[in-house]
C-alpha cells in the first residue's frame, strides 16, 4: 500500500461508499446462490478494468465462486511479433519510429524496439499521434508512427491522419486492434467456459453498447458495459450474474454516464473512414478475423507498410528468446491460465526485465498482478 495514502483514503478509495459496496457484493452472493453452481466464470477485456480490480482488491471482496478473468484486453500484449519486427526493421534502417512508451520492451522475433535503439535504431516515445506529427514537422527525416491500441486509441490516429497539412515525411505503421471480433474467438475457445463478458466503458463510449448485440445473439451469452470505479465494476458484475442466472443473453449498459447505445458517431465515422478491419494474428491468441485495423487504400501514401520496403528476413534468422518459449501469455490472455500458473512470473520475468508482453505493459495481466498482487485462487 503506497505510503502517500492515508488509511482513510484507502478505505474511501476501496469502497467509496462501503455500504453500497457491501450491498452489491451481498447481492452478487445471493444471485450466485440462486445459480447454485460451484463456479461461474466471467471475462473482462480491458487492462484498466484489471488495474482497478487488482488495485482496489475487488477479487478478495467477491465470492470465490465468481471467477473474474482478464481476457485479451491489453492491446500492447496482443501486438504480434511480426508487427514489432516491422517497427524494429524500420528503426534499424534509420527511420525515426515514434511510439507509445508501452511498446518499447515488447519482444519481437529477434529484439524489442528498446534493443533496436541500443543497437543504434531511432526510437522516440510519444504520448499521442499529434506528438508524432510534431516530431515530423521538426525534421526532414522520415517519422513512422507505430500505432497501437484498441478502437478508442485508433480514433485518435484516424483524426490525426485526417488533419490537413500533413508533413510529407510522416507515415503510420498500424498495429491497432478491434475488440469485438476477439470476443467471438475467446467465446468459442475450448476450455474457456466464459459465461458472460464485462465490456470496457470507454471503448464503448466510441462504439456504443449496441455493437455487442450481434455477439450476444450469436453466442447466447450476456455482455454488460461497465465503468472503472470499484462500485461501477461491482454493479456491472451484479448485472452480469443476474443475466446469467436468468439465462438472458442480452446487452446491458451499467455505465450510462459515458456510454450510449449508438456511441460516438462522429468518432466512428472518422475511424472507419481511415481504417478497415482485416484479419490478423493476435499474439498468443489466434488469427482474429477482422481483428486488425489497417489504413484504407485512400491513405496508401501514409501507410508505412506501402511506403517502405520493409525487409524482415535479417530479423527472422534469429531464434526467439529462449525463455519466451515457456511464456504462457497467450493462455493468460485467452483466460485459461493465470499469471501464478507461470514458472517465470516473478522469477525470471519481472517488470524491469520482462520476458513476455503481459509483463511489459501497464495493461498486461502479469504486470498488474505483480504490482498490486493477484488472487491465486482465480
Amino acid at each position, binding site marked *: 500500500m503506497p505510503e502517500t495514502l492515508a488509511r482513510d*483514503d484507502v478505505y474511501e*478509495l476501496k469502497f467509496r461508499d462501503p455500504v453500497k459496496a457491501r450491498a452489491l457484493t451481498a447481492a452478487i452472493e445471493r444471485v450466485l446462490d440462486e445459480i447454485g453452481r460451484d463456479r461461474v466464470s466471467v471475462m473482462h477485456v*480491458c487492462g484498466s478494468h484489471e488495474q482497478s480490480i487488482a488495485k482496489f482488491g475487488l477479487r478478495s471482496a467477491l465470492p470465490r465462486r465468481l471467477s473474474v478473468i482478464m481476457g485479451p484486453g491489453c492491446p500492447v500484449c496482443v501486438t504480434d511479433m511480426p508487427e514489432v519486427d516491422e517497427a524494429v526493421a524500420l528503426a534499424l534502417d534509420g527511420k525515426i519510429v515514434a511510439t507509445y512508451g508501452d511498446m518499447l520492451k515488447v519482444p519481437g522475433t529477434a529484439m524489442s524496439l528498446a534493443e533496436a535503439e541500443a543497437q543504434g535504431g531511432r526510437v522516440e516515445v510519444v504520448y499521442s499521434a499529434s506528438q508524432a506529427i510534431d516530431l515530423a514537422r521538426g525534421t526532414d527525416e522520415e517519422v513512422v508512427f507505430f500505432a497501437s491500441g484498441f478502437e478508442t486509441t485508433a480514433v*485518435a490516429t484516424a483524426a490525426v491522419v485526417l488533419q490537413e497539412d500533413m508533413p510529407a515525411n510522416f507515415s503510420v505503421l498500424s498495429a491497432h486492434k478491434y475488440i469485438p471480433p476477439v470476443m467471438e474467438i475467446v467465446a468459442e475457445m475450448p476450455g474457456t467456459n466464459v459465461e458472460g463478458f464485462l465490456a470496457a466503458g*470507454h471503448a464503448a463510449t466510441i462504439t456504443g453498447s449496441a455493437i455487442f448485440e450481434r455477439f450476444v445473439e450469436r453466442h447466447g451469452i450476456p455482455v454488460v458495459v461497465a465503468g472503472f470505479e470499484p462500485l461501477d465494476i461491482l454493479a456491472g458484475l451484479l448485472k452480469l450474474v443476474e443475466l446469467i442466472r436468468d439465462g438472458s443473453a442480452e446487452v446491458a449498459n451499467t455505465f450510462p454516464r459515458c456510454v450510449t447505445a449508438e456511441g460516438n458517431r462522429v468518432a466512428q465515422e472518422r475511424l472507419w473512414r481511415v481504417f478497415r478491419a482485416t484479419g490478423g494474428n493476435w499474439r498468443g491468441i489466434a488469427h482474429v478475423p477482422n481483428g486488425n485495423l489497417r489504413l484504407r487504400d485512400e491513405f496508401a501514401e501514409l501507410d508505412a507498410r506501402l511506403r517502405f520496403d520493409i525487409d524482415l528476413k535479417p530479423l527472422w534468422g534469429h531464434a526467439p528468446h529462449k525463455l519466451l518459449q515457456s511464456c504462457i501469455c497467450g493462455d493468460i490472455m485467452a483466460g485459461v491460465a493465470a499469471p501464478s500458473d507461470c514458472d517465470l512470473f516473478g522469477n525470471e520475468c519481472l517488470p524491469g526485465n520482462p520476458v513476455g508482453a503481459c509483463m511489459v505493459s501497464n495493461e498486461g495481466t502479469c*504486470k498488474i498482478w505483480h504490482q498490486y498482487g493477484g488472487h491465486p485462487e482465480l
Partner: protein
Amino acid sequence: MCLGVPGKVVSVDGQVALVDFFGVRRETRLDVIDEAVGPGDYVLNHVGFAIRKIPAGDIQETLSLYEILLREAGGDMMADDVRGEIEASRDAAPEEAARA
C-alpha cells in the same frame, strides 16, 4: 490506456480546446467529440482528443476516482496512466496559457 482523463474546458478555438486537468492546462483536440463544448464543460480525453462530453450531473462522480488516483506517487500504474493521458494533450501556446 482506456481509462482516459476528465478535464474542464477553459476556452475553445476552432477544433482545439484549452482544458484544465486537475490544475494543469493543456490543449486537447475536438475533432472526434460528438457534441458542441464550451467553457465550463467537462470532457473525457484520450491520447490528446476529447471523446465525450461528461453530462453535468455526473461530473463529480467521474472526477473523484481520478482525484484520488492522482494523489498516488509515481510508480502506481493507474496514476501513471492518468498522468500519461494528461501528457498526451499538447502544451498550451504561451499566450493561450497567459490569457487563460
